[in-house]
C-alpha cells in the first residue's frame, strides 16, 4: 500500500498545481431571484450557493436585539455533493460548527447597528464538495451580502493553507485535506489586512506557522481580486441595463 504522494519531487501537487497556486475560481451573483442577495462560487470542484435574506423582522421575539441586527447562518451539504451519496443530518455537528464560524466571521464586519431589531439570514447549499468548504462559504457569503446591499466595512476573503509534505501549500483540495495534512483557514479583511477568523484543527509545528499564515494571507488577497471583479462586473452590468 503506497501512500499518495501529495507533492511530487518536481514540485507539483496532486492536481498539477504548484504549492502557492489557487484553484480556479468562478463566481456570479444574483443567481436566485427569491433571495435578497445570492451568489454562486466555485473553488475548483467545490461549489457553493449562498443566499441572503434580510435585513428583515426577526422571526422570534426572543432573538431580537434592540440596537442591532442578528445574523443567522444555516448550512446544508447536499447528499449528492460527495462521491458516495450520503444524507446528512441537519444537526450534524460539523456543519453547525462551520455555520458558527461563518457567523463569527461576519458579525464584526457587517454593520449590524444600522439594522436594529432585525435579522439577517445567510443560507448555504454546498452542491459539490472537494475541500475548503469553509473558505468557499465565507467567500460566497461576502458576495451574497454585497449583492443584498447590506452594509459591511470591507470584503471578507477566506483562504486555506496547510503544510503539504515539505512545503506550505495553499487552497487544499479534498485529497490533500484527507491525508492528515495540517490545514488552516484564514478570513481576512483585504484593505486593512485584519484577520477575522483563524481556524485550525490539526497540529502544526510552530516554526512553520508563519509561513503558512503568510501564504494564506497571500491567497486571500488573490481571492479578493476575483471577488472584487465579480462585484464590479455585476455593478457595471446593472448600470448598463439601467441606462437602457
Amino acid at each position, binding site marked *: 500500500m*503506497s501512500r499518495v504522494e501529495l507533492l511530487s*519531487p518536481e514540485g507539483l501537487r496532486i492536481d498539477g498545481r504548484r504549492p502557492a*497556486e489557487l484553484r480556479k475560481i468562478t463566481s456570479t451573483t444574483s443567481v436566485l431571484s427569491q433571495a435578497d442577495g445570492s451568489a454562486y462560487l466555485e473553488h475548483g*470542484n467545490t461549489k457553493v450557493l449562498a443566499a441572503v435574506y434580510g435585513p428583515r423582522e426577526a422571526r422570534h421575539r426572543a432573538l431580537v436585539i434592540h440596537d442591532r441586527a442578528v445574523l443567522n447562518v444555516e448550512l446544508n451539504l447536499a447528499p449528492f455533493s460527495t*462521491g458516495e451519496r450520503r444524507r446528512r443530518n441537519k444537526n450534524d455537528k460539523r456543519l453547525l460548527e462551520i455555520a458558527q464560524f461563518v457567523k463569527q466571521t461576519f458579525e464584526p464586519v457587517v454593520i449590524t447597528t444600522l439594522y436594529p431589531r432585525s435579522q439577517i439570514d445567510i443560507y448555504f447549499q454546498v452542491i459539490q464538495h472537494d475541500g475548503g468548504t469553509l473558505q468557499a462559504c465565507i467567500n460566497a457569503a461576502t458576495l451574497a451580502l454585497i449583492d443584498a446591499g447590506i452594509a459591511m466595512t470591507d470584503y471578507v476573503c477566506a483562504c486555506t493553507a496547510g503544510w503539504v509534505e515539505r512545503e506550505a501549500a495553499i487552497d487544499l483540495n479534498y485529497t490533500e485535506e484527507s491525508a492528515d495534512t495540517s490545514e488552516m483557514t484564514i478570513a481576512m479583511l483585504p484593505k486593512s489586512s485584519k484577520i477575522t477568523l483563524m481556524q485550525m484543527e490539526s497540529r502544526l509545528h510552530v516554526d512553520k506557522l508563519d509561513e503558512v499564515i503568510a501564504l494564506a494571507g497571500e491567497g486571500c488577497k488573490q481571492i479578493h481580486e476575483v471577488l472584487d471583479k465579480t462585484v464590479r462586473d455585476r455593478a457595471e452590468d446593472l448600470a448598463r441595463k439601467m441606462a437602457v
Partner: protein
Amino acid sequence: MRKTWTEDIHFRKTNKNTVVKKVREVYLRKDIPCLSSQCLLDPPCHQRVKVESSLLNSEPAYYLIPDYSVALRYVELLEQEELTNIIFTETILQRLQSEDKSRTYKSLRQVAKDPRRRSIVFSNEHCEDTNVLRQPGESVEHRDWRALVQTACWYDRHLQGGVPIILLSEQFKQDDISTAEGIKGITVLTLKEYLEKFWPANVVLHELLGSLKDAILEEDIENQNQGSHSSKKGSGSIGYQEYKPMSELEAGVKSERFFQGVLRVRANHRDQAFIRGGANTGEIVIVGSEHRNRAVHGDVVVVELLNKSSWVAPSTHISYDPEEIHAAGDDENEISNQHRLREIKPTGRVVGVLTRNWQAYVATLQEGSEKDSGSFHLVLPLNPVIPKIRIRHHDAKVLANQRIVVRIDSWPIHSQYPNGHYVRSIGPVHELDTEISAILIEHGISVSQTTQGFSEGSLKEMPVNTPERPWIPEPAELSRRRDLRKHIVFSIDPPNCQDIDDAISIKEIGNGQIEFGVHIADVSFFVKENSLTDLEARARGTTVYLSDRRFDMLPKVLSEQVCSLRHHIDRYAMSVMWTLDSEANVLSTWFGRTIIRSACEMEYEQAQGLVNGKDVVPGLDARVCKQLKPSVVLLAKTMRKVRARRMANGGLELESSEVKFKFKEEDGGISDILPKQPLEVHQIIEEAMVMANSYVAKRIYEGFRDSAMLRHHPPPIESHFKMLLKAAESRGFTIDTSSNLALANSLRDCALKSQDDIEFVRLIKMMATMAMSEASYISSGSMSIEKYAHYGLALDFYTHFTSPIRRYADLVVHRQLMACINSTPTQSANTDSLSPQSLSSDLLKNGLKIAQVADHLNYKNRESKLAQKDSTELFQTLYVLQKTRNPAAVGDGDTEAEDIPFVETGIVSEIRENGFFVFVPRFGIKGPVYLKEKSGEITVPLSVLKASGRNPADISSNDHLVTISGCEMDTDLITQISIKVPPHTLASYPPGLSKMVQFRLFDKVKVALRLKKSLAHRHSIYMTLIGLDQSSSGTIPKSAMTHNSQLFKAKDKASLQIKQNEIKRIAQQDPALTPLSQGELIQGIQQGQEEQQQQQKATKSAKKKSGRRQLSNPEEAYNQTSADDSLYSLLESFDRFRIIESSQL
C-alpha cells in the same frame, strides 16, 4: 497565469465494496520544463521555474523513454549505470503508484535522483501539450501508450528534432504510432533490439536482460498456476502462511497486538532471526523458517507473538556449518527442555511484510547442480543469512564454480525458496579478485568507485598538474589567504603515504605562549559544491580501504597531488590556529584559509625517534632533524597535557585487533600478518586532530544552529555491558559503567593491576568497545543539544574536519566553516554552470538535507568498514591457507599430513554451549573451538588431559590427534566450561591423566588453526585444541611461526615476586595444577615472564611515555596508506565489530 483545466474521472472500489466515482481536477500547465540542456529556448525552460533535478545531457546520442511494460518488469536494467538520459514519464510513475509497485517506483525515482545518470522525470500528465484524455472504449494501456508517444513528439518538436528519441516498449511496435503523430525522430524498440543496436558488446546487459526475461516468464507461469488451483496449495507442506491484509497489520501494530521491525537473521544461526520490537518487548525471536514465513534478512516485517508456552531461548551454540540450515533446530528443543540458566525470550512469527529489502546478492551454484539438466537451479548466497535462491538459467555449467550476482524476484507461498534471477558472473570461486569484487558488491560499493572512474566532465573540473605544467597557486588567490609559508609546517604519516591531508605547525611566541596550528588540505577550494566531482564524491561518501588496495573518493590528481600537503611545495590549506598558554589552555582560536609549505613529510617512526630524544633519525636529513626536533618535542609536550585533560574528563582508551598484512613482492602472497604497533606519536597526532575537530564543531554549530554537520557518539546501552562485567568479575575486577569517566577509570585500574597480562587487558578493552554504541554523523537541527556529545572522546561537540580527501563529511564541514567565517572568495573563473550560488548555500543551511547527507554517509561508512573487515578476514584465511598447505613455509613440523598444523597460542574469549571462541592476538584472528562434535559427542584431545595432568613432559607430538570421546561437559556460558572424562573411559588410556579439564574465560590455550573449506562461502577459520598453554601469562607463542628470537633473562627481584603471586593465583584457579612441582612451575612462569617482557618491548606500550627502543625493523610497519591512524578511529573501527558481534549474540 492561465491554466487549462480538465478532469480526471475514474472509478474506485471502496472498503465497503461499493464502486465510487472519483473526480479529480487536473490542471494543465505551460511551464513544465523539458529539463534538457539541449533546450533551444532562451532562457532554457528549466531556468524559468525552480527545479531541483539533473538535466538531460547536452550532446547525447538519444533520449530514452521507457513504457510501463519496461519500467515495471525491467527496472533492474534501467538501474544499470550504463543507461543514461532516460525520461521517466509521470504516466508510468503514477501507474506504478496506483498499482502498489512502490519498490519499482522508488527505484525509478532513485535513478532520476542520481545526478550522474542524467535522467529526469517529466510531468507529462500535467503538461498542456502532452496530456492525453482516455477515449471512450480505450484501454488504459493504449491511453498510456498514446501519452508516451505524445510526450516523445513533444520533445521532438521542442528540441526541433535535435535529439533522436527512443521509446522502449515490450508491448507496442513502431506501427502502433498512428500516422498522424508519426515523426521521424522517434523510434520504438524493444529492449533486445535496443541493446543489440547500442550495446552490442556489453555482455552484462545482455545477460541481465536474458535472465530478467526468464524470471518474468516464470512469474507468468506462476500466476497462471495460482489462478487455476489457488486454494488447494494455500499453506501446503512447507507451512508458509498467507500474509495478513495490510489494514489488519497496520491496525495490529497500532494497537500493539503485532510488532513491527527490521528482520535480522543471526549470522551463526540461520534458523534464528529477531526483530527489535517496541520499547516494552525488546527483542522478539523468530525461530525456524515456517515462522519466518518468507521474510528475508533486512525486510521490515510485522510479527505476532506466540503463546508464552512456546517461547524459547536463543541458542548459544557455535554453529558447525554455515551451509546446514536446520542443524540448530533440533538442538533447540533439547536445550529448552534442559531449562538452562538462560532466559526465555518473547518468540513470534511473521504475519506480514511491510517493505522488502531485497538487494543484489553474491551467490554460488549449489555443488553438483550443474549436472542437472533442468533449467532451475538453487544458488547459495555468500551471506549466510540469506536463504537459498532458485534461479532459472539455461546452461548451469557456465555458472559452476563461479561467484554470480543474483536478485530475488518473489517468494510464492508454496515455494520453499525464493525465486530469483541471474544478473551476472563475477569470476571463479576463491580467486582473490573475485572474492574482493564479491565483498564490494555485498557492501554496495559502486562500480564507478571500484574502477576508480570519474566521468570526463568531472575530470575537466580538475586542476592541471603534470610534470611539464605543475600546479602553482594563483597570485590572486594568494592575496586572499593568510601566508604561513614562513612557519615550520610538517606532517606525520605512515610511510609512503600519498594522500597527506593534515599538517601541523607549532612554535613558541614568547611569554610562555605557544602558537599551534593544524592545517588541513583545502579540498573544498577545488571541489565546488554540486559540481560533478562533488556529486560523485557525495555518492561514494568515503574512500574505501581494503587490506591490499584502496578505492578513492576523489580523483587522483586531487587526492595524491594538488590537495596532498607534500613537502617543499606551496599548498592551499584550511587552518585552525590556537594561541596556547604554557599549560596548553586555549587563549584564542583562528580559523581560515591559508597557504603553507610543508618542511618535511615525516613518518611516524621518525617522529617517534625525535620525541624520544634522538638527534638524527634514519631517512631524514640531519639538518631537517635539527630544524624539526624542537617543534616535535614541543608538540608532544603540549599534546600530552591536552590529552591528560581530556582523559580526566572521561575519554576512553580502547583497543582494536587491527592487523596489517605484509605482502610478498614476487607473487602477491601474504608473507606475514602484523598487529598494529601503537606509538606515542599516533596519540599525539590524534590528539591534535581531535582538538581541531572539536573546535571546528563548536564553530560551525554557532554558525549553523539547525544544520551543522556534527558527529555524535551516544552513550552505550547499559545491558550491552553484561558480558564485560561478568568477564571482569571472573578475574576479580568490578567495572563501573555509570559514566564514561567511571568506565575509563575502572578500565585503567584493570590495566594497572594486570600489567603482567596484557592480553587480558586487551580483551577486556575490546569487550568494552563492543558494548559501545555506534558513532554517527548528525545534522544539529535533528537532535537536541545534549545529544551532540561524544561519549568516547568525552567532548560536547565533535565533527570530522581533518580528512577531507577521504571523507565527504569533512568536505561539508569545510564548506560550513568557510561560510561561518564569511570569507568565501567570490566564485572564481571555474564557476560551474550547474551550481548557482543560491543552491550551494541552500544545502548548507537546510537541516533536512544535511540530515539526509549525514544518513547517507553513515550508511556508506558502515558499509565500507564492513567491507574492510571482510577483506581482512579474507586475507587472514588466505594466510592460514598458505600456512597449512605449503610445507616449505613452515620450517619443521610433520609434513606427512596434508594439513600442516599451524599452532598458535590464543585466549579463550567467549564461552558457548558447545565450545568456545579463541582469540589469537598475534594475527587478530578469532575462531571457534568445538568441544562437542556435531554428532553430540564430546571429545577432548589427549594432550589436554596430559597437559593438565602430572607429567607435562611426556606429551608427544601426536597426542592432539588422539581424542577421547564420551565425556561430559558443563558450562555456565559466561566464565567457564569444563569437561569430565568418565573413569571407565579413562582406564583405557595410560595413567597420569587428569579427570577433568576446565577452561575459563581468558585462559591461554594452544590451538591449531584450520580452514573449513567451502565452495559456496569464503573459507572460514576454525581451531582445534592442541593443549593448554604451559606458560600461563602473556606470551607470544613459541610455535614454528613466531620469530623465535633470543630470550633474555629477567633477573630483578620484583619479577620474582610477581612469579610467586602468579603461582598462587594459578593454584587457586586450577586445582589440577597444584601437584605440579614448584620448580617446574617457576620455570614455566619464568619463561612466560621473559617472553612477555620481550613482547612488551616489541609492542612498545604507548601508555608508558618514557622513551623506548625504536621498532627494530622498519619494514614491519605498514606498507601502504593506512585507513585510520587515530586512536579514536580504533574506537570507530570497533563500531563495526559491535554491529557484527551484536547480530551474532
